[in-house]
């Protein structure tokens, strides 16, 4: 039995999918939730094998929810938007169902799931960070992170800086640090270049948070943020910073 969770903000859409799934004996719907917050809690509790995930949802979207999960279940996206296909593909989703979809189309998707279950080696264990390369259409305006069981939405203009911490990136916003799986390269790409600058191999800074820049040792500099933090600036980082600040 494959245990499924549905996350969709439209009650009728949840109902329809549950109706469809009722006739597939190998699949059981164990929970249905109307937004990312409830969904996050539900997934932690129920530990489903398969997730039917809508993309456009209140406050945090389907992709952002997925980023928060340490061990994401298999995912089938269900949405009326065809513009997210690349991003969904990038998330290693098993399938991408365009609403309205037929039962037959659902059957095909479920068959894929069954195949993956029988041969789990095909399935990648970790979900990569959202929107690499092609799928970046707009610069990031907010970042969704969790600490413990709580989800935080950080508007990018409240973020002071990013620092590399092993496989994670530490995001410091309003005096608090949050860890998120990802690379500095990824964040450098998805943040607006006029607002954020990679000043060092392991630091990206929000330029509006800088209070002063001072020379340090031979060819290096230090930036002082308004909150008192000091961050080292490498030689190339200084070049980038000069470009962003036009100095």
């Amino acid at each position, binding site marked *: 039995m494959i245990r499924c969770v549905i996350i969709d903000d439209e009650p*009728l*859409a949840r*109902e*329809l999918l549950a109706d469809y799934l009722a006739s597939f004996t190998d699949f059981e719907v164990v929970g249905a939730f109307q*937004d990312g917050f409830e969904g996050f809690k539900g997934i932690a509790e129920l530990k489903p094998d398969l997730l039917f995930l809508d993309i456009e949802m*209140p406050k945090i979207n389907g992709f952002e929810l997925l980023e928060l999960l340490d061990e994401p279940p298999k995912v089938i996206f269900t949405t*009326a*938007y065809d513009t997210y296909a690349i991003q969904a593909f990038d998330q290693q989703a098993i399938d991408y169902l365009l*609403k*309205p979809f037929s039962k037959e189309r659902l059957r095909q998707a479920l068959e894929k799931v069954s195949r993956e279950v029988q041969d789990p080696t095909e399935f990648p264990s970790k979900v990569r960070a959202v929107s690499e390369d092609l799928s970046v259409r707009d610069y990031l305006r907010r970042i969704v992170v969790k600490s413990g069981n709580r989800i935080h939405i950080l508007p990018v203009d409240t973020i002071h800086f990013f620092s590399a911490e092993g496989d994670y990136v530490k995001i410091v916003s309003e005096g608090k640090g949050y860890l998120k799986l990802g690379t500095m390269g990824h964040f450098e790409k998805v943040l607006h270049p006029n607002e954020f600058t990679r000043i060092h191999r392991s630091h990206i800074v929000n330029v509006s948070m800088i209070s002063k820049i001072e020379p340090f040792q031979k060819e290096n500099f230090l930036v002082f943020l308004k909150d008192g933090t000091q961050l080292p600036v490498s030689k190339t980082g200084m070049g980038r910073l000069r470009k962003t600040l036009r100095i």
Partner: protein
Amino acid sequence: MENQLKIHKLTGEPLDHIAFLLMVFASILACSFFWHQQWEWAIQDAIMSTLAFGLGVFILNMILYYYPIGKFRTWPALMFSLVITIALVFACRLLWKGEFLGDPEFLRLFEESLPFRVIVGLLLFHLAGLIILSGKTSLKEFQMMQQGELRQKLSTDAELHYLRQQMQPHFLFNSLNSINALLARQPEKAREMVQGLADFYRENLNKDPKKWETLTREMKVIGQYLELEKIRFGHRLTYELVVPAEADELKLPSLLIQTLVENAVKHGLYGVTGDILIRIEARKEQQYLEVTVQNPTDNQSGKASGTGFGLDSLERRLFLIFGRKDLLTLRNSAGIFSAIIKIPQTN
């Protein structure tokens, strides 16, 4: 644009201009010499006349530059040339009268040659004027052509965008999905939604954004739209329409409020998690119809990408219709986002 034009005229093709002036100089020199067989006089005459001619062309250029193109036709151009020629010839004559340059014999010859000078000057200036004018017209025409193409492209883009907006594919597909869900359990409700969807689309597709509609008619479509959204989102969505009788027959450009309402629903539904109330209130405020559209909001969630696009285009549309930028006010307080639109009532 105008500036470029000026630079082009004063600095462009200087070699051509100098060659032309030299030709003029040589011709005057030759004519003058054949007239009185005096090299000294001929050179003086040629220098003076060429300078006068150059000055004349410069003045002509200036006049044509400041004179609105298109109104300047052959006859006025001829008149200008004539006036300039006579003025310059007269100026030359005055200069030569001076003791140190003048020679009674040369002065007599100069006076005898006056008609000849005026006629040649007139022809030359007229020619110069036409050349200047034709250059200007073609440049201007070229720019106008480019602008025309640009305007055409902009309006096509706007039209396409409008059509796509009108179709609202996501709304349509999600609604179809809802109908699909209703078919099994509540066929009556499914039927109701099919009808609602059909009415909404028919009404919308028949609408001409250039036309004005009564508030009642606009509100009817908005009501249809909100009913459909209510079926989709169930108890999460409630709405309030407040339209006093005195505002019923007021007119406004179609689809303006609908854009605001769609925007409010979108940001209400995706901006907060709980139940949302969309409130629409119209009232008559002196010479204006004032409509307020409110939705709950949460500042913490950070702006979703694409936010404000609907409002931006609405603002542009208002500006195109009324030429004013103060008709749309946005307010955000105590978790409620309000968009207030004012429609001037002309009659």
